[in-house]
């Protein structure tokens, strides 16, 4: 077997073994807190292949998607401006540092006050809490653009807008993408937390609600679904990153 094949087999086998171990352990134990695996699996299928998916998972995914798209667009645009104009960056830096240091969940009560308990509040929390990695990495990325590249473009009469679009943006992209990935995991956390605090639907709400109803298998089914969402999101992200940033990975690699 090739090394690659071996690694892939391990990657698949280890989780399966862990699952089997849990099944054996929980099955024998009959614990209230750790229900048997087949019980969780059963509830998982019943819940998420039914209306409950539409009722709880879809609203969560919608909030996450809207919030994430919004924060990426805002973070990248603000980051480009702040990165390009040192003066503006200097001026807003203390305020930005303060906002960043503030735990976003502390703003949930404020969000409820202003936006109510609907989607707007949750999207607000996701944006304000998860925008920072995108924003700060974009600023760094813009700062890190090689001055020689810009000078080359200037020597060839490429205008300011052309230089931003065709040099600053692609050169900063690897950093931006790194930020986007970190932001994504923070956004998922904030989605869950905001739904636990104030919501009538969503996966965060569902997990907490199941626990309160002592429906422990349901609770676990919700947790597992959240894990899967996080995993799949990250997986898709890495895939997209690989194809978009092929030049970056390979130009830094041993090929050179």
């Amino acid at each position, binding site marked *: 077997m090739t090394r690659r094949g071996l690694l892939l087999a391990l990657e698949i086998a280890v989780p399966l073994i862990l699952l089997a171990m849990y099944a054996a352990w929980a099955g024998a134990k009959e614990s209230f807190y750790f229900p048997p695996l087949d019980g969780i699996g059963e509830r998982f299928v019943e819940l998420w292949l039914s209306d409950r998916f539409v009722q709880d998972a879809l609203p969560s995914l919608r909030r996450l998607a809207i919030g994430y798209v919004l924060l990426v667009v805002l973070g990248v645009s603000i980051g480009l401006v702040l990165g390009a104009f040192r003066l503006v960056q200097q001026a807003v830096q203390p305020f930005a540092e303060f906002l960043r240091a503030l735990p976003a969940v502390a703003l949930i009560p404020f969000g409820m006050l202003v936006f109510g308990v609907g989607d707007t509040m949750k999207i607000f929390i996701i944006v304000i809490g998860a925008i920072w990695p995108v924003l700060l990495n974009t600023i760094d990325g813009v700062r890190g653009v*090689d001055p*020689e*590249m810009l*000078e*080359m*473009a*200037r*020597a*060839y*009469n*490429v*205008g300011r807008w*052309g230089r931003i679009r*065709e*040099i600053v943006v*692609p*050169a900063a*992209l690897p950093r931006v993408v790194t930020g986007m990935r970190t932001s994504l995991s923070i956004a998922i956390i904030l989605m869950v937390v905001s739904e636990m605090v104030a919501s009538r639907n969503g996966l965060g709400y569902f997990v907490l609600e199941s626990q309160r109803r002592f429906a422990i298998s349901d609770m676990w089914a919700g947790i597992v679904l959240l894990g899967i969402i996080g995993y799949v999101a990250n997986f898709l992200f890495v895939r997209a990153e690989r194809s978009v940033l092929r*030049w*970056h990975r*390979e*130009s830094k690699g041993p*090929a*050179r």
Partner: protein
Amino acid sequence: MSGRAMLEVTSLAKSYQSRNGTTDAIADVSFRVASGEFVCVVGPSGCGKTTLLKCLAGLLSPTAGEVQLNGEPVRRPPPNMAFVFQDYSNSMLPWLRVENNITFPLRHKGVSADRRAALAEETLRVVGLGEFARHYPWQLSGGMQQRVAIARALAYEPEILLMDEPFASVDAQTRSDLEDLLLDVWARYGVTTVFVTHDIDESVYLADRVFVLNDRPSTVQMEVPVELPRPRDQITTKELTEFTKLRTEVMRTIKHARRSRSDEERMGQA
């Protein structure tokens, strides 16, 4: 000097403001370059050669004096001028394939897609990289990347080509190959060339005239006409007594410039 003056530099001076006060890079430089001429500017490292070239290119504005191209003052990079940088790896865009690196300036110049493709193809062939159009720059060696930079400059169809120590960071063998390639290209396209280098042999081998700068703040210490026959050859040209005489002359001028300068410094300290 044959032909009309294409580039005219008059009493150019440039100083920088930095944290340590004002640095005078160029004190007073004047010269003219005729259309189709190959001129080298040679001088010790750090003497303000690059600053001078960037002033010619309109990338820096001079503190005093003027640069004129075809009778027009240069205030920003002119559309009929191309620039080849010393650092090839940072002047190539790593996310673009070689052909797209070449056509990048052309797109912004408003050249049609067909013409862009034709120019990229032609210039890559001229620099001997015809089959590397679809590669990325970082897949190529340093010397090959600098060939791409030359192709990019040629595709821009400039009347004047400015080169800033373009062969300083490649190995000796590649360097002499690139020098010959450049002379071929120059003869073929008849493009006026200003070539900055710290390598005395290189300047004499390539140029019609060599301007010797002294240490900063720079002035033109001497102008050396090079009347070696063309086409030139790495072996036979460099064997000529005339070549040896010229390079000795340039070297002596540079040494003299440095010595008188360090004398001054000693006097200053005393």
